[in-house]
């Protein structure tokens, strides 16, 4: 096994594989910066180019590109409030306010370093999990996956205000998100729901236009209203010091970064959970880590922990995603489903062979994740100072270009004019929500998890009736969900006793 581990490293370091990894990283860097064109779409575009490559070269190229896109997606999220990758929206919640507070350098430094740590933990998890993953994945059937999704929904408690009305507003938004997820064709019977007679809605609402609209448009409107640069009239940050501070933050809150990375790995391993879930669960966990209500109030207004958590989870998820893909041929996400196509082209069959005959290729993937992320972070750190200066350019010059990115990004979701209208509508909705104090993150969580919750619930009920509720692991997960719901209030108890609502 150790020999295969070392052979994997040498496979990546061969000049051709290494050069292809660099090309992939360059593409991934650009793609990550552009909203809408996620890593999955680019993987699909690049699959035809791997026909003439050997497996190690192909995976160095594809994984190098994909892992870097996850890292650089955070850059536009922080600088402009526009989710670089559709699913990296959780970084916007605290990253962009940091940029507005004149701390863009610190936020970028924190995002990149936590991404690197997350990626390394994800790669380590992949390397360690390969021999032991089978029983873990097989233990999780639909009832357990349903309960996991419900734990994700329970995170709404942490993302909402802790007053009675705050909780009502948070859960109402979560339920609205669940309702939005029901738009389109129902998966079990094929019936259409709330499609308004539009074929565009048959597939349901695409996440990219919704997320970009709900997060980016309100920030653009605020920028236009202020009439200043993103960082406003604040004195220019000492960028080098800011970036360094962000890097130090990663190690100051290392335990949080580690836990959020673990969340990412775990969600990645669970087939079908999707990338957005990992980020939001990690974000909610970061909020839960606040010491008291005073500490908690800083989230959403520019707390570096709100950048560290999602940043780490976003990248550690990549390692986790690969585990079921390699071990069983069960893709953990859309991007991994496309990567499976790469396996087929290479003539590799995911499963036991990847853990025995082709173990060196499997470990070359681990090494690609490690090397690509290290190079990206080092290169990004070199240009961060220049990137962060963007937040000091007059808003009037930035707005048209960011609007262009927003709408081109949204359009790429389906290549349909309706994508732009959806973006606009959710932009208006997001603006009103911020204006009137209704939280957006629970809505996104509901929307991201809605389809999963419905699918797993139906499979569980169809397969087991209601007996699944008595499964030992389900009972454990119900208890865990109760802890997730109650925990913020328990931490908050002294404040509540002292005259809350």
């Amino acid at each position, binding site marked *: 096994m150790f020999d295969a581990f070392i052979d994997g490293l040498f496979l990546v370091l061969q000049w051709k594989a290494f050069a292809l990894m660099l090309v992939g990283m360059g593409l991934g860097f650009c793609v990550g910066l552009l909203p809408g064109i996620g890593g999955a779409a680019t993987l699909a575009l690049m699959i035809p180019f791997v026909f003439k490559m050997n497996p190690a070269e192909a995976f160095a190229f594809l994984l190098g590109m994909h892992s870097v896109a996850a890292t650089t997606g955070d850059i536009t999220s922080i600088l402009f409030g526009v989710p670089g990758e559709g699913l990296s929206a959780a970084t916007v919640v605290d990253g962009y306010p940091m940029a507005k507070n004149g701390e863009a350098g610190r936020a970028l430094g924190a995002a990149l370093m936590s991404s690197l740590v997350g990626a390394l933990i994800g790669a380590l998890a992949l390397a360690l999990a390969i021999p032991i993953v089978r029983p873990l994945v097989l233990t999780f059937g639909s009832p357990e996956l349903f309960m996991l999704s419900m734990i994700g929904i329970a995170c709404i408690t942490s993302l909402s205000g802790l007053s009675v009305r705050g909780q009502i507003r948070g*859960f109402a938004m979560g339920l*609205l998100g669940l*309702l939005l997820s029901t738009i389109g064709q129902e998966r079990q019977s094929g019936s259409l729901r709330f499609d308004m007679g539009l074929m565009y809605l048959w597939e349901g609402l695409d996440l990219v236009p919704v997320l970009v609209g709900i997060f980016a448009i309100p920030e653009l409107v605020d920028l236009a209203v202020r009439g200043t640069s993103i960082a406003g009239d604040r004195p220019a940050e000492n960028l080098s010091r800011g970036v360094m501070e962000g890097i130090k933050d990663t190690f100051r809150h290392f335990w949080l970064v580690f836990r959020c990375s673990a969340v990412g790995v775990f969600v990645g391993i669970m087939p079908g959970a999707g990338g957005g879930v990992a980020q939001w669960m990690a974000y909610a966990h970061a909020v839960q880590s606040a010491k008291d209500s005073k500490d908690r109030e800083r989230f959403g207004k520019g707390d570096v922990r709100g950048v560290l958590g999602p940043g780490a989870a976003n990248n550690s998820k990549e390692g986790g995603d690969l585990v079921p893909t390699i071990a069983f041929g069960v893709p953990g996400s859309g991007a991994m489903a496309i990567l499976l196509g790469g396996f087929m082209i290479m003539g590799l069959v995911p499963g036991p062979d990847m853990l025995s005959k082709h173990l060196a290729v499997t470990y070359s993937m681990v090494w690609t994740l490690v090397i690509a992320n290290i190079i990206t972070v080092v290169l990004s750190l070199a240009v961060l100072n220049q990137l962060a200066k963007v937040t000091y350019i007059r808003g009037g010059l930035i*707005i048209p270009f960011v609007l*262009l990115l927003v709408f081109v990004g949204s359009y790429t979701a389906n290549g349909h004019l309706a994508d732009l209208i959806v973006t606009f509508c959710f932009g208006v909705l997001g603006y009103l929500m911020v204006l009137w*104090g209704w939280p957006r993150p629970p809505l996104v969580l509901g929307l991201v998890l809605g389809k999963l919750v419905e699918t797993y619930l139906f499979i569980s009920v169809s397969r087991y009736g209601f007996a699944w509720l008595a499964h030992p692991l389900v009972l454990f997960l119900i208890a865990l969900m109760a802890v997730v719901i109650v925990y913020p209030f328990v931490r908050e108890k002294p404040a509540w006793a002292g005259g809350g609502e």
Partner: protein
Amino acid sequence: MKSKGHLYFSAFLLVISGYVIFTASRWSFKTGFFPLAAAIPLLVLVLIHLYLELFAPAEVSKGPAVEAEFSDEVAPDIARRRVITIFSWIAAFILFVYLIGFPLTVPLFIFCYLKFQSDVTWLSTITLTAISWGFFYTLFQRLVYIQFEAGVIPTWLGL
């Protein structure tokens, strides 16, 4: 403003949940179960929220939601005017994409926004427009091959 906004938004949610319950209750169990399972508690929560907003004492803010806030440095009437202006620009952008397609809208929008909204000099406006159009064309049309719709006017003209 926020309190009034809470009422408006609650009313909006009331309409949505009412519509979903009305519609989904006529569907088969399989199709309607999940929307009903989300809409009924939503309706109940919104009614409680409305009751609290209308009849209970004002909320004491403890542990607010994790959410951004808009800046309040600009006078409300100026802010309102700027909000309408930017939303008009966005709506115009979408309208022009519909009429003349993405490739033509991009330079036109950038040019018009920089010149008429941001009051940038002619030279800078033209330079920035050319750069953005070049970036858009090279990346999205030449490298990534995204098929942009032509727009109704070029289609009508047979271009």
